[in-house]
C-alpha cells in the first residue's frame, strides 16, 4: 500500500512549516538555554523556503519532492541543523528513487536518513541530539506496532523528555557539559515536529 503520495509529501512539508513557524520561539528559547539561540529562526527560515520552492514546482515522485526539500534546507538553513536535515532528506530521497512509498520502502528511507545524520554529525544514540529522535523513529518502523503511528509519536515524545536528562556530548551544547542537564535538545524538538507533521498526512493502518 502506498502510504505517501507526491501530494501528501508536499502537505508533509507544509505541515512541518506550520509547526516550525508556530514553535519558532519555543525552539529558539530551547537553543538559547544550551546553544546559541538560532534554532527556531533557522528552522522557520528553512521550511518557509522549502514550502515556497515546492509550491511553485511540479513533481513526478516523492523522491523529487524530498530532494527539492533537501537542497533547499542545505542552502538556506546553515548552522549544524542545515547540513544534518539536508542530508537526512537527501538520503531519504535517494532511497526512494524510482520507488513507490510503501511501509517497507519508507522504513528503508528512514534508515538511510539516520545513517546520513550519523555520517555527517558523528553522533551516537544518547548524545542529546536530533539523532536520538530519528533513531527512535527507525526503531519504531522496525517494530511490530508499525500500524499504530500514534505510538511512534509517543515514543518520540518520550525521547525528547529523555534528552532533558542527558549531558550533551555533540554539537554546540556539548561545551556546557553538566549545565545541559534539565534542558530539552532543540534539534530533537524540531525533529519531533517533523514526525508529528508526517503522522498528520501519512496514510496509515487503513
Amino acid at each position, binding site marked *: 500500500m502506498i502510504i505517501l503520495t507526491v501530494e501528501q509529501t508536499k502537505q508533509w512539508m507544509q505541515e512541518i512549516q506550520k509547526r516550525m513557524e508556530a514553535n519558532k520561539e519555543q525552539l*529558539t528559547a530551547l537553543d538559547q538555554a544550551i546553544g546559541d539561540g538560532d534554532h527556531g529562526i533557522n528552522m522557520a527560515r528553512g521550511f518557509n523556503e522549502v514550502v515556497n520552492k515546492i509550491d511553485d514546482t511540479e513533481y513526478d515522485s516523492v523522491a523529487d519532492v524530498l530532494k527539492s526539500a533537501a537542497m533547499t534546507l542545505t542552502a538556506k538553513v546553515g548552522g549544524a541543523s542545515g547540513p544534518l536535515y539536508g542530508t537526512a532528506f537527501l538520503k531519504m530521497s535517494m532511497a526512494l528513487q524510482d520507488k513507490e512509498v510503501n511501509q517497507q520502502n519508507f522504513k528503508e528511507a528512514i534508515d538511510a536518513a539516520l545513517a546520513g545524520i550519523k555520517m555527517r554529525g558523528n553522533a551516537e544514540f544518547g548524545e542529546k541530539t536530533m539523532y536520538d529522535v530519528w533513531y527512535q523513529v527507525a526503531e519504531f518502523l522496525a517494530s511490530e506496532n508499525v500500524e499504530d503511528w500514534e505510538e511512534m509519536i509517543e515514543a518520540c515524545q518520550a525521547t525528547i523528555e529523555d534528552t532533558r536528562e542527558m549531558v550533551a556530548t555533540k554539537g554546540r551544547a556539548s561545551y556546557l557539559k553538566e549545565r545541559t542537564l534539565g534542558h530539552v535538545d532543540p534539534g530533537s524538538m524540531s525533529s519531533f515536529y517533523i514526525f508529528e507533521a508526517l503522522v498528520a498526512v501519512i496514510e496509515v493502518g487503513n
Partner: protein
Amino acid sequence: MKKVVNNVDQVVEEMLDGIVTAHSDSIKRIDNTTVLVRQDAPIKGKVGLVSGGGSGHEPAHAGYIGQGMLDAAVVGEVFTSPTPDQVYEAIKAVDSGEGVLLIIKNYTGDVMNFEMAAELAEVEGINVEKVIVDDDVAVEDSTFTTGRRGIAGTVFVHKVAGAIAESGASLTEVRAAAEKVIANVRSMGVALSACTVPAAGKSSFALDDNEMEIGIGIHGESGIERVPLQSADKIVERLLNQITADIDYQDSEVAVMVNGMGATPEMELYIVYRHVAKLLAEKGITIYNKWVGEYMTALEMSGFSITLLKVDDQLKDGLNAISQAKAFRV
C-alpha cells in the same frame, strides 16, 4: 532588545550592503550570495584564502579581507554558519588555479557546511585544503566530543596564512603555516553580559550584577561556569593560568591579543592588557607583539578574551608582513 535596525530578518543583508557600499574600492560582493571577496580576486599565482562563519562577529570576517590576509569571507545569518553553496561560491571566486585554503572555526555547523562546500569544489577539480581552528582552552579537548571551539585566535591564523599566501607559497605550505599557528595559539574568554540575536529579540541568558560567565564562546552562549564577578586582575589571572597551563610557553615569545566582545570599553581592555603584561613577565614569557581592541565579537556582549600565540621566526614574519585588511592594518 534595542538595536539600530530596520527589519530583524534583513540585518545581514543590509550590513553586507553597507559594507560593500563603504568599501567598494577594495571589496566586492558576488551577486546573489553573501560572499565578500577582494576586489582583485582571484589573484594570479596566489593560493586563495576563504574564512567565514555566522555574522555578529564583526569586524570578523569581512574586516580581514585584503592584501596580506583573506581573499573571501562567507557570511552566514547571525551566529549561524553559512551554507555549503555560499562557501562554494567563495572558493570558485578566489581560486586562481593555485588552490584554496578554508579556515574553519571548530563548530559542528561550520565544519559540516565548509566540508560539504569542499566536496562540491573537489568535484569541479578545485584543489581545496582546510584547517580547523580550535584555540579555546575553556573547552576540553577530546576525541569523543566536538573538541575545542575556534575563537579569537583565528585572526592570527588569517594573518599568518595570509602573509605566507601573499609570498607566493604553495597550498601545502600555506596550510602548514596555518596549522603551525593553530598548534601554537590558545585563547579563553569571559562575559559580563549576554547579547541578543536580532531575530530572537531577547538575550540568551541573564547575569546578575555580581555574576560573570567564564569560558564563553563567540555566539552569545553561556560559558563553562558562572562565578561571582571579580576584579580585572583576578579575571586575567584565571584566564591566563588556564591558557598557559595548556602548552608550554616557558621562555618563549608570544603575540598577545586582548579582544573585546563588543560592548567593553577600550579603557577596560587596556586595564586587562596591563595585567596580562605583568603576569607574562612574571612567568618569563616575552611579549613579541600585541593587539588590543575588537577583533572577534559577539554582537553587543560585554566581556573579553585573551589569546596567546607562541611565535617562531616564521610566525613573526607572518605577523609583521604588510596587511591591507581594514580591521588589521600592518
